[in-house]
C-alpha cells in the first residue's frame, strides 16, 4: 500500500473538508466524503467502444451497471496501476473511479477560490474544485464526477465483451 511521505495520513483539522484521499498516478487526489459510496477491489470491467480513453468500460456495482473512470488517465493522461475502485454518486447513478491506493478519510485543507485553483480552465476547472496539500505534496480536491459522457450511460444498458481488468 502506498502512502504519503512520513507514513499514514494524519487527520486534518476539523475546519477542513472531510474527503476520501487516494492516489492517481503521481497525484494525490480527494473526493468529498459525501459523494463516496464505498471502496472495493477492482471488479471485472467490460470495455466500451467509442468512449474517451479515460473510460475503462462498465462494471457491476451491487447488481447495477456502472461506468468505470480511470482517474489517472483522466487527470494526467498516462497509464498507472489500478488498486481500488471507489464508487461515487453521479447524476445518473453510481460511477466507479479506478484509482491507485486509497489512503483513508481525512479532513483536507484547501486553498480559497482565488488561489491556485483559479488558474484551471476547461476540463480541469470542471474536475478540480480546490487544491490543498498533503505534507509536501499537492492535493487535488475533485468535484462530483460528472465527466461521464452520455453515450456511456446509454451503453450501460448493453453488455460489451469482457476483458481482464
Amino acid at each position, binding site marked *: *500500500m502506498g502512502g504519503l511521505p512520513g507514513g*499514514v495520513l494524519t487527520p486534518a483539522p476539523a475546519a477542513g473538508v472531510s474527503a*476520501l484521499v487516494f492516489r492517481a498516478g503521481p497525484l494525490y487526489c480527494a473526493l468529498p466524503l459525501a459523494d463516496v459510496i464505498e*471502496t472495493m477491489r477492482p471488479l471485472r470491467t467490460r470495455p466500451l467502444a467509442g468512449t474517451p480513453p479515460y473510460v475503462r468500460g462498465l462494471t457491476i456495482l451491487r447488481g447495477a451497471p456502472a461506468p468505470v473512470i480511470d482517474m489517472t488517465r483522466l487527470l494526467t493522461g498516462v497509464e498507472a496501476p489500478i488498486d*481500488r475502485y471507489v464508487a461515487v454518486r453521479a447524476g445518473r447513478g453510481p460511477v466507479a473511479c479506478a484509482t491507485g491506493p486509497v489512503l483513508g*478519510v481525512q479532513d483536507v485543507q484547501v486553498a480559497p477560490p482565488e488561489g491556485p485553483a483559479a488558474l484551471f480552465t476547461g476540463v480541469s476547472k470542471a474536475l478540480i474544485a480546490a487544491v490543498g496539500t498533503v505534507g509536501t505534496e499537492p492535493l487535488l480536491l475533485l468535484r462530483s464526477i460528472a465527466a461521464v459522457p452520455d453515450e456511456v450511460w446509454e451503453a450501460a444498458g448493453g453488455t460489451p465483451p469482457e476483458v481482464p481488468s
Partner: protein
Amino acid sequence: MMAGRTYGGKLAIGVGITVTLTLLTIVTSVVGLVFVVKAKDATIASATECLSGAENLSRLMEKRIADYRAYLLNKSPESARLTEESHRSFRQLLGEMGCASGDAESKAKLTDITALDDKHAAATTEMMTTRTQTDDIEEINRLNDTRVVPIRDALQKALTDLTELVRIDVAESRQASSDRATQAMVLVVSLGVLTTISAVLVALRLSRDLKREVGTAVGHIQSSSAQLEAAAAQQVSGGRDQASAMSEITTTISELLITSRQIADSAQRVSKIAEETEAAARAGDATIDQTRTSIGTIRSQVDQIVQHMLALGEKSQQIGQVVDLVSELAEQTNILAINATIEASGAGEWGRRFAVVAEEIRKLADRTAGSAKEIRALIEDVRGAVNTTVMATEIGAKAVDAGARQFDDATNSFREIVQLVATTNDATREIELSTKQQTTAVEQVNVAASDTARVSRETEASAVQTKQTAAHLSTLSSDLLEMVGTGRH
C-alpha cells in the same frame, strides 16, 4: 714434315738437316781436295818426270853428240865408251819415259824418237866404224853430213817436239786440275750456301715455332698463373675466413663443452630428483585412497543438505501461503474499515466515534498488511536463499561428482604419471649417460676443431705462398714472352 711434332723434335730435325748438309759439305770438300790433289800430283808428276825426261833426253842427246864428235876428232876409245854410255842412258831414260807417258800422241812421238834413235845409233856406229878405218876427216865430215846429220836433226826435232808436247800436256793437266779445283770450290761453296740457307731457314722456322709455340705455352702459363694467383687469393681469403670460422667454432665448441658438462650435472641431478619423485608418487597411492573415501562422505553429506534445504523450502512456501492469507485478510479489513469510516461519516456523533474505531482498525489492518508484506519479503528472501542454497548444493553435489570423476581421472593420471616418472627416470639415466658420451665427443670435436683451425692457418700461409709464387710465375712468363719476342698477350 714438321707438322704435329714437338718443338724438340723440330729442333732435332733442323739440327739434323744442318749437320747433314755440313757433313755433306765437308765430305764434298774432302773428295774435291782429294781429286784436286791427285790432279795436281799428276800435273806435277808430268811436269817433273815427262818434261824433265824430255829435257834430259835433249841434254843426253847433246852429250852423246859431243862424245860422238870427240870420237870423230880423236878416235879415242873413251869417247866411244862415253858415246855408248850416253846412248844407253838415253835409251834407258827413253824407256822410262815411255812408261810414264799416258797419251797416244806422246807414245807415238816416243816411238818415232826410238826409231830415229835406232837409225841415229846405226848411223853413228857406222860412222865410228868408218872413222876407225880411215883418218880422212873430210870424208868423214862428208859422210857424217850426209848420213848422220839428217837423222840427228830429225831426232833433235823429235825431241824438241816431244818436249813441246810434254809442255802442252803439262799445261793441259794443270788446267784440268785447276778446273777440277774450281769445280770442287763451286760445289763446296754451293753446299756451303745451301747449308747456310738451310740453317737460316731452320733457324727462322724454329724461331717462328719457338715464338708461336713457346709464346702460346708461355701465354697459357701466364694465364694459368693469373688464374692460379686469383685462385690462391680466393684460397687465401677462404683460408682466412675458414681460420676465423674455425676459431669461432672452437670457441663455440668450448662453450658447448662447458654447457655439456653442466647438462651432464643437471641430468644427474634430474635423475636423482626423478628417483625421489617416483618414490613420492608411489607413497601417494595411500593418500589417494583416503581422499576418495573423504569425497564419498562429502557426497552423502551434500545429499543430506539438499534434502534438508528442500524441506525448508516447502515449509517456507507453507508459511508464505499463511502470510498471503493474512495479507488478504488485512486488505479486506482495510477496505471494510474505510467503508465503515465512510458510512460512519453520515451517522452524526456516534458515527464519528465509530469512524475513530474504524480508523484504528484500518491502521491495524495497514500494520498487519505491512508486517505481512515484510514477512512475505522475508519468506521470499528465505525461499530465494533456500533455492540458491539448493541450487548451490546441487551444483556442489554435481561438483563433488565431477570432482570425484576428475579425482578418478586425476588418480589414473597420477598413476600414469607414476609410470611416466619411472619411464622419465630411465630416460633421464639414458640422457645422463648420453650426455657424458656427448661431452666426451665434444671434447674430441674440440681437439679436432683446434687441429682443423691450425691446418686452416697453415693452408692460409700456403695459399699466400702460392699466390706469391703465382705472381712470380706470371712475371717470369712476361719476361719469357719478352725474351722470345712475342710480348705480352
